[in-house]
């Protein structure tokens, strides 16, 4: 059989860089039905389904794509939703190149790109929303058991939705005034419109999940109360707390954590100040420290909020950069500058305590470190980058409020919750955990995978099939 597969993914329309760098509208515009069908036809429907192994929530990818080929978009989204409760978000923000698409057989053909699985997932999720009525899956008979979920981010919402479908009474407690976690405070509007997050949260509510906002577990609701009132608890509070490098000048005016900058802009809509009350002051020259996805988000957000020049400052090189290639390319197209092999050693301020620049050590790459990436070592030279705003995006650490109030819960050496990665079971009976609060900062889909596994384990525990606490 002669196969004629177009070597390249069907392109997805995007806002042109010179236009989009000035607005907060979504960059990628999605497929038309014709484009989706054309792309679906690139799929070989491999019987071994290697792509599924690359997906943390094991979506039956060849089957959903087969439905698209046949023009049965409802069948496609129904298939996805058996596995994934947040498809419109995942289709947009999953690093498919490291997951499903990295396993795609088409992608192994020399000169050929893998099937655009993420784009197809996004297409059918958006298609269903456009139809108006979102179909609800089968919800099992009520079991009469209560589960509390702490945190309405990707892992918590996933665990909650799966447990609701299994017939449990699920209440999600969210500290913020809006559910969604990193999907609402972290990922910018131009990459994941907040309307889409709202839509996915609405779907989860329709499954019967109760979401209580402004509820800080450990403070508004004491941990003991939760343990007494619920048959099981899932903790998915995220990594949450910003890390600072801690160089001199960290507390100068104009130095931000990426979390603060992005929360102001995304959750509080500071880009619409003064229509919205929360302000943000964006500098003319902005230095973003770090080169992960959060750094790209912060840099591109700063551009849109009016910065004239945005620089990414990173101690290694393009090759070791943790950001998704797609995000990096978007940032380059939009005019973000990259300063490689620069490690900030001091933020310099003026006499009023406002930041005016970043003093950097010039680095070179040495031998590989524990992460397998070549370690940056100082050359002895220094460099100075002028900047009136600095945004540190160098990672996060364990969210503190809940953990401070829950000392019985064992932690690992990094301060995250010690939990079984297959089940989410923690050291405390009936308490499960997953997502960034267990693994440290990772991806949305990995957190969702953890929520899914925990939901299964909670079901087995509550139905008496399994009890890792052996009592």
């Amino acid at each position: 059989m002669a196969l004629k597969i177009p070597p390249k993914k069907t392109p997805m329309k995007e806002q042109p860089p010179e236009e989009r760098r000035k607005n907060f509208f979504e960059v990628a515009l999605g497929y038309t039905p014709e484009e989706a069908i054309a792309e679906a036809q690139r799929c070989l429907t491999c019987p071994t389904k290697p792509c599924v192994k690359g997906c943390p929530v094991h979506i039956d990818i060849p089957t959903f794509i087969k439905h698209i080929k046949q023009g049965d978009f409802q069948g496609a989204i129904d298939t996805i939703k058996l596995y994934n409760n947040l498809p419109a978000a995942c289709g947009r923000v999953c690093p498919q190149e490291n997951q499903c698409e990295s396993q795609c057989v088409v992608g192994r053909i020399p000169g050929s790109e893998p099937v655009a699985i993420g784009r197809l997932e996004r297409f059918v999720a958006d298609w269903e929303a456009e139809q108006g009525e979102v179909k609800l899956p089968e919800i099992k008979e009520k079991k009469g058991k209560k589960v509390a979920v702490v945190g309405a981010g990707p892992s918590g919402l996933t665990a909650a939705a799966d447990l609701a479908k299994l017939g449990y009474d699920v209440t999600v407690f969210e500290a913020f005034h809006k559910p969604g976690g990193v999907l609402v405070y972290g990922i910018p509007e131009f990459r994941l419109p907040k309307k889409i997050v709202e839509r996915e949260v609405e779907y989860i509510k329709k499954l019967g999940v109760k979401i209580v906002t402004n509820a800080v577990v450990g403070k508004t609701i004491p941990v003991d109360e939760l343990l007494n009132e619920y048959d099981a608890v899932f903790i998915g509070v995220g990594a949450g707390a910003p890390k600072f490098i801690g160089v001199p000048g960290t507390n100068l005016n104009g130095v931000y954590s990426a979390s603060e900058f992005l929360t102001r802009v995304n959750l509080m809509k500071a880009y619409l100040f003064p229509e919205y009350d929360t302000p943000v002051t964006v500098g003319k020259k902005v230095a973003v420290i770090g080169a992960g996805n959060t750094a790209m988000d912060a840099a591109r957000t700063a551009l849109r909020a009016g910065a004239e020049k945005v620089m990414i400052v990173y101690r290694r090189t393009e090759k070791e950069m943790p950001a998704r290639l797609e995000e990096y390319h978007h940032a380059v197209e939009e005019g973000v500058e990259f300063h490689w092999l620069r490690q900030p050693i001091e933020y310099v301020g003026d006499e009023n305590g406002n930041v005016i620049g970043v003093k950097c050590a010039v680095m070179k790459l040495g031998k590989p470190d524990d992460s397998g990436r070549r370690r940056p070592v100082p050359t002895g030279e220094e460099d100075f980058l002028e900047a009136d705003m600095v945004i540190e995006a160098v990672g996060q650490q364990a969210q503190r409020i809940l953990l401070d109030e829950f000392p019985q819960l064992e932690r690992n050496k990094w301060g995250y919750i010690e939990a079984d990665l297959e089940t989410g079971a923690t050291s405390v009976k009936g308490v499960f955990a997953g997502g960034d609060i267990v693994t440290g900062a990772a991806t949305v889909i990995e957190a969702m995978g953890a929520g899914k596994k925990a939901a299964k384990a909670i079901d087995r525990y509550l139905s008496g099939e399994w009890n890792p606490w052996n009592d």
Partner: protein
Amino acid sequence: MAHKIVRKRKLAHLVHEFVIEAPLIAEHAKPGHFIVVRIHEKGERIPLTIADTYKDDGTFKMIVRAVGKSTYELCMMKEEDELLDVVGPLGKPSEIENYGRVLLIGGGVGIATLHPIAKALYEAGNEIYSILGGRSKEYVIMEEDFKKYGEVLVTTDDGSYGMKGLVTDGMEHLVKEKSLNFDVAWAVGPTVMMKFAAFKGKELGIPKMWVSLNPIMVDGTGMCGACRVTVGGEIKFACVDGPEFDGYQVEWDEIIRRMNQYKEREKIALERFLEKVGDVSWL
């Protein structure tokens, strides 16, 4: 869930007392805790303090001074109106124990924050002296409440009530003229007042002084780091490590500088709001 304003009254020009329906906060708040309020969908998250809690009614009291757009808007709300979001109690509670003789220094609406602390310290068996300071008579709030727990010395900037002068003059008076030794002190009020109270406390040999910091915050739950302050040479987040810190260790000039970061924006927002709402001299 929206939170109803059950009662509201004006205490002084631009200073208003609210009783808010929030059963979980009423039940769990301890002295020293704070809350975050958002008035409406376009509102910012405003950190405020708790003046008292009423467990049986499921309500708490807060006293707010209108200084910026959001607090003006809040103070213009009426009884039966609802606040969109109230979250808390947040922060670490005050360290209440029987210290012996305690000095409490309150300025402006900071007096309200100090009130639950005074009550708890009194119940823990401490002998309490309070200095309540205000610009003029009208701004000295809750005097009767504090009198229940011990002796009260009032200071006013203009001398319209009590002793003419600042709270630091009151401190000097109690320590030097009345020859009182204090085992610990709390100072809560405008940041500049707390700074000078801490300097004075150190000078007068008061062994320790707690202050309640109110830097700019966004989430109030340790997620953003906007509220970072330097205490004893280390960076702390006021929302989760505080808001109370050892006043002798706080880098005061830094926090005062950081609090001014949004001054221009705050001014724009307030001017624009006042233009829209017209005359607010009644507030």
